[in-house]
């Protein structure tokens, strides 16, 4: 239960609202000439955090459009996270909810923002315990151990491949594997085909490569298991070299 009087709460609310919107309120006993410092300081923290998280979108959008978007976000949205570095996720969610890409006629905007957020998220996300694994095993019939610190996502636009200025008219199915290297903590990105995305997803779900390929051969109507196997093994070996596939799950 709050011990604050309504009048005190009201003064606090008015100052906070002013910092969000810039609309000057009626406040009691203030130094009017200094009030704007609060709006400036609050807004600068917000805008710096968002611009740092979304450098590609920031550079791509014209200044006046970007400024208006950030201004509206700050005025309309109630930031929920106490951790300011997580706040850009709320900016992305706000843009999706308000259909900013529709209003701006930029159908790739959600994908672009999400790609930029994802890079930050994968870089900073909490450590996930690595599975116990052996380095020797049967690639086809043993369960594969994968780096758990990764995201496999589908985009409608190839935001991870092309510059923002080249995305128009490129709608399709694009898959991105993004993972964090264990030792360096660096984030690596890899464009993968829908077939390989399926294979990775099923391995992640606990199937052997042999089982996945058997399913994939019919699902994708390849009807050439040996060729599929050869390509898939090359792909898996590449991921082993990149240390995304760690080895063979030790059960």
């Amino acid at each position, binding site marked *: 239960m*709050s*011990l*604050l*009087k309504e*009048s*005190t*709460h009201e*003064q*606090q*609310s008015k*100052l*906070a*609202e002013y*910092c*969000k919107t810039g609309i000057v309120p009626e*406040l*009691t*006993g*203030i*130094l*009017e000439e*200094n*009030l704007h*410092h*609060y709006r400036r*300081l*609050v807004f600068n*923290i*917000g805008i710096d*955090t968002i611009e740092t998280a979304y450098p590609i979108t920031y550079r791509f959008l014209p200044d006046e459009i970007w400024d208006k978007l950030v201004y509206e976000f700050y005025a309309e*949205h*109630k*930031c*929920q*996270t*106490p*951790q*300011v*570095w997580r*706040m850009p996720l709320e900016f992305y969610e706000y843009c999706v909810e308000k259909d900013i890409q529709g209003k701006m006629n930029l159908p790739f905007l959600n994908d672009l923002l999400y790609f930029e957020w994802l890079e930050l998220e994968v*870089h*900073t*996300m*909490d*450590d*996930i315990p690595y599975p116990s694994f052996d380095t020797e095993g049967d690639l086809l019939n043993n369960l594969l151990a994968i780096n758990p*610190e990764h995201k496999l996502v589908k985009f409608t636009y190839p935001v991870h491949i092309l510059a923002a200025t080249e995305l128009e008219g490129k709608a399709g199915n694009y898959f991105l594997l993004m993972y*964090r290297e264990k030792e*360096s*903590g*660096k984030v690596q990105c890899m464009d993968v085909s829908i077939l390989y995305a399926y294979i990775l997803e099923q391995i992640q779900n606990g199937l052997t490569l042999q089982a996945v390929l058997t399913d994939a051969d019919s699902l994708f109507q390849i009807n050439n298991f040996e060729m599929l196997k050869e390509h898939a093994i090359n792909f898996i070996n590449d991921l082993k070299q990149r240390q995304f596939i760690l080895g063979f799950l030790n059960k």
Partner: protein
Amino acid sequence: MQLKDNKHIGIGFRKDFSEELLDSTVLKPAFIELAPENWIGMGGYWKKQLDKAAEKFPITCHGLSLSIGSPDDLDLDFLYKIKKFIKQYNVQIYSEHLSYAKCDNAHLYDLLPIPFRKDAVKHIIARIKQVQDILEMPLAIENVSYYTPVAAEMDEATFISEIVDGSGCNMLLDVNNVYVNSFNHNYNAKEFITKLPLNKVSYIHMAGHEQISDTVIIDTHGEAVIEKVFELFEYTTSLLKPVPVLLERDFNIPELEELQTELTRMETIVSKTWKKEHVIA
């Protein structure tokens, strides 16, 4: 807090110079301070850096988002995360700002001035007690810099004193903030300090600031500490028992030699003032 070799001066651990600090033979703080908000739930490269830092230095925590003066309820989920972090890194001092950073369910990520009012005092005392009960340790509350009062019914020193007395919390005395406020609100900084609950001061902050006009200083943490703040620091420490002292430097990070020069100067001051019998107001 146990400090090595009778050294008292620490530095804010910032990502901008964390790597340099961890490898440095130049900058030798007695401890480091960090904002738990900036590290909780963070893995990968930064978690490794934090763990390395924790092996090398004692850690204090200085929170940003607890929003002790907010009209909103305390965020208990977040508070329990802080508690876990404090235990994990053996944090001996946890401090927060006597301000609010969240209102009407919206975080603002900056420090807004609380109305200096009796009902706000009662409200904050109850919240500090709740925080201390959950954390099972005292909270140290920092006097913040402010650019305008809002709906004040008492003076700042009375406001702070009543909260510290009523809650049993400790005080983080930010000497630079006293200087900034004395300039912006035209009062005597030394007189102000004598009105504070000095027997409850458990921690000191020092920082630089930026004077942006004839009448306004902004507390930026982006400049070197100025001479007048060093003078006020010397005066302040002469009234206190020995406590850890922190240099805050968040922006315009200079060469580490420059930071060490500031640390050395503060250490020289306290080695003089804290060698004598201390006057506790």
